[in-house]
Structure formats: C-alpha cells, structure tokens
C-alpha cells in the first residue's frame, strides 16, 4: 500500500474503509476446541458416573474429581498458548471473555457451594444445565453461531425434564445435553474454522 495517495477519490476511500472493516470482522479465532474438550469430558464423566451408580459402586462420582481438574489444566495451558499467538483482540473476544468469566464464577458456585448442603443434589445437574444453556445462548449470539443457540435451547428443555427425574436419569440427560450443546456445535465450529483458514 502506497504511503501517500493524495488522488484517492471519495469512493475509493469509502471502499477502503469497508474492506478493512470487513477484513477485521472476519477474524475468527474459535475453532470449537473448548466446546469439544468440555463436552467430551462431561459426556464421558456422566456416563461413567451412571454406570458405576447402577453397579452400586459407592464412590460413583469420583470420576468428576479426575476429569474436571484435567479439563481445567488443559484449558489453562491452551489459553496461554492461544494468547501468545493472538495478534489482534477484537471486541467479540472482549465480550466473550466477560461471558466466560461470568460462566466460570457461576459454575464454581454451583459445583462447590451448592453441594455443601447435601439436600440440593436433586437440583445439582439441572441447575448446572441451566448455566450451560445460559452461557451457550449468549456465546452463540456473540459469535453469531446458531448451532450453539440451538444447543442451548435443547439443554434448557432437558434441564426442565431433569428437575423431575432421579439422579441416575439426570446423568443420562446431562450426557445427552452436552452432546447437543457442546460436542456437536464444537465440531461444527471446527469445520467452519478449518474452511476459513
């Protein structure tokens, strides 16, 4: 691009502005990694928990204590790596950061404070699913990716059903929920990302 182009016409200037704004808007960082990571971790954990529960294994929920911290460590490492290679911060990134922070705090409260009162286990997974759906719907709107929002609706619907189910069935519903809300949209996002690269 030339240094000074004083003969730049008004139309050319407008075209240049439009091209640059569009070019910046096309910046898509999200390859669906986190949706797939957490989707698969929760999916596998819920099914293992369910299997151990029906086998009447007393510490059936131990799997969560392994998979969730594992997901946390992988996410932190990936986050640092992504930050290093990120050359531009868009406003979408900024808003997403706020939503993810709010999501993280809400999850933390539900996962660590709610179980302190053991009588609330009946609502634990349904509430978790409501938070999943809330975040997925917001994130889908921000990045304009409909499958995330469809996933959110399906998780909301499953959460409603889940409130009236027993713990073991809730685990199966949770697995189905993350399949539709995280795993499938995550793969679709990955396909979109690879097409744009």
């Amino acid at each position: 691009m030339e240094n000074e182009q004083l003969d730049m016409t008004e139309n050319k200037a407008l075209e240049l502005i439009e091209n640059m704004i569009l070019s910046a808007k096309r910046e898509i960082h999200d390859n669906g990694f986190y949706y797939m990571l957490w989707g698969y971790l929760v999916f596998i954990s819920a099914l293992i928990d369910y299997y151990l529960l029906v086998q009447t294994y007393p510490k059936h929920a131990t799997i969560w204590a392994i998979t969730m911290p594992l997901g946390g460590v992988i996410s932190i490492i990936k986050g640092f790596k992504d930050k290093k290679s990120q050359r531009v911060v868009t406003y979408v990134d900024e808003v997403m950061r706020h939503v993810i922070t709010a999501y993280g705090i809400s999850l933390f409260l539900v996962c660590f404070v709610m179980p302190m009162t053991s009588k609330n286990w009946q609502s634990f997974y349904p509430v978790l699913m409501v938070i999943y759906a809330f975040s997925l719907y917001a994130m889908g709107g921000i990045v304009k990716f409909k499958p995330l929002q469809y996933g959110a609706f399906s998780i909301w619907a499953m959460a409603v059903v889940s409130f009236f189910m027993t713990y073991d069935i809730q685990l199966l519903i949770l697995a189905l929920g993350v399949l539709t809300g995280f795993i499938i949209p995550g793969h679709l996002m990955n396909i979109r990302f690879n097409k744009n690269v």
Partner: protein
Amino acid sequence: MFKELDPILHSQLRLAVISLLISVKEAEFNYLKEKTKASSGNLSVQLQKLKEAGYIEIEKSFKDNFPLTTCKISNAGIEAFENYVKNLKQYIQVKK
C-alpha cells in the same frame, strides 16, 4: 458548506490502519502489516503520524523476548474517523 477531509486520514495507508483499529480492541504491528500489505518501514512512519495526531495509542512491549508493538485507536481517533466518514458521505452525495 463542505468541510475539508482530514488530511491525516485522507491517506490510503493511514485510513486503512484506522479502519482496522476501529473494528478491533487492539492489534499487533504484524497484523496491521499483513492486512494493509504495507512495508514495515512505511507502516512505522504512518503509525507514528497517527500517534502524533493523537488518533492512536502505541504500546511497546516484549513477547517471547522479541519487541512487540500493539496499537489501539484513541477516543480522538474514533471522533476523527466518524467525522471523516460523515464528510466523505457529503462529498459522495453531491457528486451523485
């Protein structure tokens, strides 16, 4: 009455940089270089001019032991860009 187009922005490379920066929160030097297809030397000079006009903020730091230049548009830059586009539209409407 036409207002004159801001000479700081009425330059292809500077306008391209400002248009990119208005769309993002902040961008690294190499990102701007890649998007505008400008040479490093030319881009540096134009960024400096935008900085002197108060339109952008430049932050110099290090990333993996390499110097890193990050740019973001200032409030004055946003205002100047909005005025530039407004004036540009007036010119275009009259020419139609």
